């Protein structure tokens, strides 16, 4: 039952799993002194195909934001990309010169940030901010940029775009600001949109609208999306594939349905189990299981599997196993060294899958 629910909840878009647009390989992001570095992202390999929506999920501090910022080389001092390779459409992102990198950021990649309250410049009218990117990055004239901006604002679901063009960010609600931010990031029709927790700061209804907007823009422009979230409900609604991060590693990746119905890594399963079901209050009996312990500190050196210290399936061999993603199904890979891990609780994802429906269906974008 659970499997079907999930599939219905997510927009049924076929995965165009052909040539990858973004390929991140063995990425390592470090902070601190070079001789005693703190690695926030330890070893991440992922790829986003053209037109695909990849969800990157994990708890705070798992390295998901840094991973997606790395794609744009948006890692500031004192952070640094210590090793690994990032390729965008075949080009080596880490080897780009300053102007090549700017051109790529300007036209081919867009980024939406988590906090719509600080991602727009408070002293400029929102329309001017969108028009600025059109003028600077696409070389439009002032007039053309203004007209185009009004169109873009309308397209992201801003009522009265002519009037809203003149608003300052503080005059708009969080959801509206996030729409503006999306208009800003997608103005040059980028081929990849990186959305770093775009709905975390918003309430649930607004969240659903923003996700639906992203899904629509994705199908209209054919752009790929790398969606970062810590909310399985969000991921389930719009993503084709999911990558689960823990402690600076990707622990499992696969198609969204497979991940929900048959998680192949204990951490993924534990995450799904910790999501409360909508009818939990009615049923009353079930308690959510929390994952014991704390996520690892950056300074902690964990031999073998990073999740082993908190894992209820951990075995002695886990302490020496390497964190390598192994194929466990079609386009489905897990880094769990215990395979197949199981404790006889088939369909563990069931409760969580039901909970996914907490967020209302967004096949139609509400309010448009």
């Amino acid at each position, binding site marked *: 039952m659970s499997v079907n629910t999930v599939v219905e909840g997510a927009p049924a878009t076929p995965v165009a799993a052909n040539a990858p647009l973004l390929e991140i390989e063995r990425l390592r992001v470090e902070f601190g002194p070079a001789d005693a570095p703190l690695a926030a992202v330890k070893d991440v390999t992922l790829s986003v195909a053209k037109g695909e929506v990849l969800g990157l999920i994990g708890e705070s501090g798992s390295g998901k934001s840094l991973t997606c910022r790395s794609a*744009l080389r948006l890692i500031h001092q004192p952070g640094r990309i210590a090793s690994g390779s990032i390729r965008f459409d075949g080009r080596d992102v880490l080897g780009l010169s300053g102007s090549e990198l700017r051109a790529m950021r300007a036209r081919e990649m867009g980024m939406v940030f988590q906090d719509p309250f600080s991602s727009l410049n*408070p002293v*400029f009218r929102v329309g001017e901010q969108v028009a600025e*990117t059109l003028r600077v990055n696409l070389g439009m004239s002032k007039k053309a940029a203004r007209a185009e901006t009004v169109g873009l604002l309308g397209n992201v679901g801003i009522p009265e775009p002519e009037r809203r063009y003149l608003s300052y960010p503080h*005059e708009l*609600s969080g959801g509206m600001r996030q729409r503006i931010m999306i208009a800003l990031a997608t103005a040059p029709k980028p081929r990849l949109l990186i959305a770093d927790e775009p709905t975390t700061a918003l309430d649930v209804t607004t969240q659903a609208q923003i996700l639906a907007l992203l899904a629509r823009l994705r199908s209209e422009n054919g752009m790929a999306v790398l969606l970062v979230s810590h909310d399985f409900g969000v991921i389930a609604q719009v993503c084709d594939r999911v990558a689960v991060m823990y402690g600076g590693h990707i622990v499992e990746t696969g198609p969204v349905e497979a991940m929900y119905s048959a998680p192949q890594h204990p951490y993924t399963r534990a995450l799904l189990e910790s999501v409360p079901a909508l009818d939990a209050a009615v049923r009353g009996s079930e308690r959510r299981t929390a994952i014991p312990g704390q996520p690892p500190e950056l300074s902690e050196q964990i031999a073998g599997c990073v999740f082993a210290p908190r894992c209820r399936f951990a075995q002695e061999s886990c302490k020496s196993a390497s964190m390598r993603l192994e194929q466990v199904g079609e386009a489905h890979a897990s880094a769990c060294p215990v395979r197949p891990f199981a404790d006889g609780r088939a369909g563990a994802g069931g409760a969580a899958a039901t909970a996914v429906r907490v967020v209302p269906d967004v096949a139609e974008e509400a309010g448009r």
Partner: protein
Amino acid sequence: MSATVPATTPAARRRIGLRGLFAGRTRPPLPVLIGIGIVGVIALASLLAPLIAPYPPDKLDFLNQLQAPSFSHLMGTDDAGRDVFSRTLYGMRVDLGIVLLVTYVPMPLGVLIGAVAGYFGGIVDTVVSRVADTMIAFPFIVLVIAIIAIVGPGLTGVLIGVPIAAWALYARLARSEMLVMREQQFMLATTALGYTKRRAILRHAVPNLMRSSLIYSTVDLVVNLLLLAGLSYLGLGQQPPGAELGTIIAGGQAYLLSAWWIATLPGLVLVAFGVGVGLIGDGLSDGRMRGGAS
């Protein structure tokens, strides 16, 4: 659809940022209006001094020495029979012109230098910060007097000396704000959008940094005005017989008991101007507190 209802609470309506200072739809609070009134009247009167002043500022009249304030001499006359009111108007003119110059020329430079230092950090920041610290640590008035000792008494010393040191405080202010702003997502977004660093700093950061410097500049303005009057009082600024508030007050000092108006009334104008600027500055920083979507 609650998401599309714009926030129109009074607090949200209040403008923030540099433009909001002037483009606010709400009326400024009363103290600010009073401040604007005082400063406006004094500034206008000194600007129009040639039209308003009843006598030429240097006209000697030995028949009417040390006259008490009356309708023919609003602020009385000094020991040479010069009309104190006319001298005050002309004096304020000199004072205001110089003070505005030495306050608002170094301000944008300081903000820019501070913004660059804060944005880039590292060695740029270290160098700029140490130079600024040195300027600030050095006693300001000693520096100005030292420069006057080189170029000779007069207003040139003030024009050179004050800007040399004044940028440093603005730079430090802007730098510390930039350190915070650099981490804000809209600054990160300028990078993500592929803007040049120059555009990020000049177009996106500086307008945000200007506000606090502008508020601080109201304090600086009064300090500079007092500095200028003080130097003239000491005989290092405006040289007699040129009219300047400091020289007028210094000249009247000897007659404080017999002809109190010579030093007191121009002094009150100076105080009133300082209070007016202070009220405006207070209003600006209050608006910042309330407008507060930082």
